[in-house]
């Protein structure tokens, strides 16, 4: 795991830790709250949680790395969740992944150099009848084709320019 050396504002965690510190079994809930606050799990925050909850850092890292929800690096402004569920797979989601790669040059888990887009493959978004589907932040885009996907990404990029 690479070190993200910028110091995080640990005081943001005060309320969450106050609420859950004494409740056994609440580590995952605390980590979920931390991710909402920081956008990802910075290393110093993980250590802070470990000290405050008296849980060894190895266990906190162990739990955090086990679950796919947790991230250890910041994500781009637009987080693309590309559905790779069975229905999307059957309806050619690989072609959509290829189109995103051609347009942005990123693969699963990567962020564009300008920090604008992050691509994450997910198991199922549950909109199977609209497959293939992707979500960009809060918006869902269905019945995608490679051309449609590229157009959506281009438009988002133009909004920024």
């Amino acid at each position, binding site marked *: 795991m690479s070190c993200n050396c910028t110091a995080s504002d640990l005081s943001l965690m005060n309320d969450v830790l106050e609420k859950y510190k004494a409740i056994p*079994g609440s580590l995952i809930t605390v980590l979920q709250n931390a991710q909402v606050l920081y956008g990802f799990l910075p290393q110093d925050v993980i250590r802070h949680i470990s000290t405050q909850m008296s849980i060894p850092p190895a266990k906190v890292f162990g739990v955090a790395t086990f*679950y796919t929800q947790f991230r250890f690096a910041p994500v781009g402004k637009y987080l693309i969740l590309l559905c790779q569920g*069975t229905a999307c797979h059957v309806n050619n989601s690989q072609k959509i992944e290829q189109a995103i790669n051609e347009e942005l040059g990123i693969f699963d888990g990567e962020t564009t150099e300008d920090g604008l887009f992050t691509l994450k493959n997910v198991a*199922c978004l*549950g909109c*199977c009848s609209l497959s293939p589907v992707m979500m960009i932040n809060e918006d*869902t885009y269905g019945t995608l084709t490679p051309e449609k996907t590229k157009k959506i990404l281009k438009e988002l990029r133009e909004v920024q320019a």
Partner: protein
Amino acid sequence: MKIAVGQGSCGTAAGAGKVYNLLEKTINENSLNAELTITGCIGMCFLEPIVDIYADDGSLKRLVKITEKDIPAIADYIQTGDPEKIAKLEVSAADNEFLTKQTRIALRHCGIINPEKIEDYLADKGYLALKKVLAMTPEQVIEEMKLSGLGGRGGAGFPTWFKWNAARQSAGDVKYLICNADEGDPGAFMDRAVIESDPHSVIEGMLIGAYAIGAQSAIIYVRAEYPLAITRLKKAIEQAEKAGYLGKNILGTGFSCDFRIKAGAGAFVCGEETALIESLEGNRGMPRLKPPFPAQSGFWQKPSNINNVETFANVPWIILNGGPAFAAMGTEDSKGTKVFALTGKIKRGGLVEIPMGKTLRDVIYDIGGGIRDNKEFKGVQMGGPSGGCIPAELIDTVIDYKKLNATGAIMGSGGMVVMDENTCMVSMAKFFLDFTAKESCGKCIHCRIGTKRLLEILERICTGKGRQGDIELLEDLCNEIKNGSLCGLGQTAPNPVLSTIRYFRSEYEAHINEHRCPACDCTELLTFEIDSEKCTGCTLCKKKCPVDAITGEVKKPHLIDFEKCIKCGKCRQVCRFDAVKVF
């Protein structure tokens, strides 16, 4: 007049939110006489966004595939009451059969009530089953469940009454009731739809279960990927507590049960009950050795009972209508109804609830309308990554736990992904193994490394590098993994491979022996060629080819250089004359 906009996740993704907002604005600005509300998932996902208009006499007009441009017509209808205004938007009789051919028990309120209003639930016999149960003894409740024959709808079909009884019999004052809403099977969304559309029936079912086993605490473990479901559950719990249906001294009977929601963090293995308990305790979700079973020693080593969302949603109905009414539906081995998420290459995809005993043909053709684009039906994957593929020749298989198991597939939680002639079965098996290899928790060596090796072999077969003996190697490894894994994930992970080898062995052989993909799906095994009869020489493919493998002059047939071609498929995608052939 009441207007309800279907706002499940599917509807929202299709644009129901925008439709609702615009309708609201239109109604307010023009002071139209209509009450606007939301409803959950109607189940006709292929027709979303859906707007239901209820006349004052209760009759329904269902408008489908509504976009913002249809709002003026709806406004006209509200004002004039002239059905002609919206005639074009109404659901067709054929599409409506998707619903009329179903028998809805678990989904009885879905798409009908407003999931965010307890009043709507109460108006349709809501919490009456709880009231009835509180006047019964726990043993009587368990007996009623026994009569119903309800089996666990998470996939295994284990009798619910038996689990409840085991937890009831376990010694100890502190017991837990847990609802498994960690629906991780890619291609299944039944549980999400039930929670989003009818959260109170799940809560009521859980309360009945808690009363039966003697639990004072109930926990719902929901996938974090289901934010809307979590929001609606939270609201429902607050409303139920306020109304005195949960919390301390429920309805003055002395029975108390507190509720909480735990959001999962994304791990398929947490659908396994002991892994789920580990996750609830804040650990890595790795399964425990059984026995002891959760009924003896579960959450914090206390007796715990875990059932799935759909199981709980059935419970209030069973209590109100009696166990025998539920058992009257279905087959000898499998009682009641089952909900399926019908997706893939199907004309009408969505949520389907049917009595056990119907055939796959009933679901795929009668309800689902058959295969999209009139292609040929090839098979259906049941039970997701833990299940298997049922081929076209077995389409008359009866839906029943035992009969489905006999085919090598499973009932599973209800994912039903339909495949057509263009789906490569080897590639399908590879897809599922890619999933299980990533989701293996790593505890058992056979599962952790075995699934990875299975995936590698399947990958080489799909890229034309398969070796003689690979099929036998796959079969051998599959059996080892089944025998050497502790939990259901490992024990069932080889199913997609075994069932595709069983029914589509010739496809595996074609990949290995002839380096050919019969479904023309595995791109690396394809040969691209331009049909000189159809090619008009528009030069589009030549321009788009990333490796300059296409040559030809304007208005003359083009040619692909096989040596240079990287089989990316671009030319085929862009050709407007269907001139690029693959074989």
